[in-house]
């Protein structure tokens, strides 16, 4: 066994009930942090749900294509005729090149009256299609992405709060744990310093311990997500919000990402521990 592993084992052996509780709390809070971060990536609808949502998205406008052969007088006439309709809120002429550089001619961007019924919309479309010089009609709907997340705003704010509080709480409990652990290990630290152990060895020991806590939190989330994935995949009629959990690739990606995030947070926790060993109580000389 290498010197580092020997001392690391001794450091682990110096964990007592109080420091163990603090580090357990640190691990759980890191797990909570990672779970909240993971939720943002997992609670999103699948592609199928997104496509279905597209048709149901609210109508923003109708783009009515006009033949390039129409004279300006004819376009003016059509404009006035359409504007008079009750089911039209606003009409605007645009050059087709504004939307597509390859296109020619012009188009009317028509905003239907608010809360137009599906039948009325069909009637409006039919009417517009029957006009002379109209080449095509395109329904422009609100972006599906904007309404993609099934998480309400309050839930998203709640998750953000959980992330901030869990991070702060884990650092607080890690500091407590390290302080208690180092008090138990103070004699060993003094002996190591007295006998010429490099400071970087002490630094690496405490960093390694922090990384271990972060790694365990990340692994715990990986296990929980894998279990949830199998539960979600087994459901015949899953609700929309667990769609993300049914995708094995997405669960694996999120788990792996969170594992790295856990290691990073663990390193930060370790860094916090190393900041405590500069106290005078660990000086080898009185």
């Amino acid at each position: 066994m290498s010197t580092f592993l020997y001392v690391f084992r001794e450091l682990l052996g110096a964990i007592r009930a109080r420091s163990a509780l603090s580090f357990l709390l640190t691990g759980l809070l890191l797990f909570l942090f990672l779970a909240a971060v993971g939720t943002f990536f997992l609670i999103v609808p699948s592609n199928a749900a997104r496509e279905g949502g597209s048709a149901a998205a609210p109508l923003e406008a109708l783009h009515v294509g006009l033949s390039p052969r129409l004279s300006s007088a004819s376009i003016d006439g059509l404009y006035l005729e359409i504007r008079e309709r009750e089911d039209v809120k606003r009409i605007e002429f645009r050059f087709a090149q504004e939307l597509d550089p390859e296109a020619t001619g012009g188009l009317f961007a028509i905003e239907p009256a608010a809360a137009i019924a599906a039948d009325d919309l069909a009637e409006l479309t039919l009417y517009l299609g029957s006009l002379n010089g109209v080449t095509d009609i395109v329904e422009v709907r609100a972006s599906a992405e904007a309404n993609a997340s099934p998480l309400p705003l309050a839930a998203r704010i709640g998750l953000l709060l959980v992330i901030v509080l869990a991070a702060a709480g884990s650092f607080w409990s890690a500091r407590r744990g390290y302080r208690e652990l180092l008090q138990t290990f103070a004699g060993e630290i003094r002996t190591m310093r007295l006998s010429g152990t490099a400071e970087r060895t002490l630094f690496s020991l405490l960093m390694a311990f922090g990384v271990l806590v972060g790694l365990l939190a990340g692994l715990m989330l990986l296990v929980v997500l894998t279990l949830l994935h199998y539960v979600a995949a087994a459901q015949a009629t899953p609700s929309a919000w667990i769609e993300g959990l049914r995708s094995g690739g997405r669960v694996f990606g999120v788990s792996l990402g969170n594992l790295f995030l856990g290691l990073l947070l663990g390193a930060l926790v370790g860094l916090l521990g190393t900041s405590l060993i500069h106290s005078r109580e660990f000086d080898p000389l009185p």
Partner: protein
Amino acid sequence: MAVMIQVSELHHSSEDGIKVLEDVHLRVEQGELAYLVGQASSGKSLLLGLLGTHVPPQRGQILVHGRNVVRLSPTRLLDLRRRIGFLPQGAVPMPRTVQDNLMFKLRTLGNYPEQAEEKAILALESTGLIRQQGTDALELSSLDRVRLGVALAICDDPLLLLIDEPFEGLDPSERDEVCDLLERIHTGHPTILVATRGPLPEAVRSDHRVVTLSDGAVTGI
């Protein structure tokens, strides 16, 4: 005879500017057992800290085993520190058995388990602690704590032993026992410098050099 410690024009002040050591000159030969005697706050512990490379020097020259402490790189300074056995004043052992105290130090210095055990047993035999090897170090008497401190200092075959106040809190017969222990150790370990408040125990042999430190300066050799 080769020189183990050579100190010249050594000055040192505390953080608040009080002069603790002033123009200290000291020479200890290889194989010598010398006593550094001085009142409390005379700078003995600081001098030992400087010699043991635990305190960075401010002004002056310190040569230990031919190496200039002032100019050594951090890595070489650690290498030198590993060759110096140091027993600080009022050292408290680690909360583990006597033998495990030694094993911990030896393992952290890179000794293999068998090698560490062998060295630990040897050090315990030299200091007369072999029977207490399984005892919790915190339960040891004051005298045995000094013995353990000495065992810790000698266990990895150091070139130099620096021992600070080994007689503190001991009765006269125990002080004589520590003197006997130092004499025994001295036969196997070449150079020992012992700092003490004095007066020296009766068992100290008259042929050992006694250096007096007063108000931060060497006043008598």
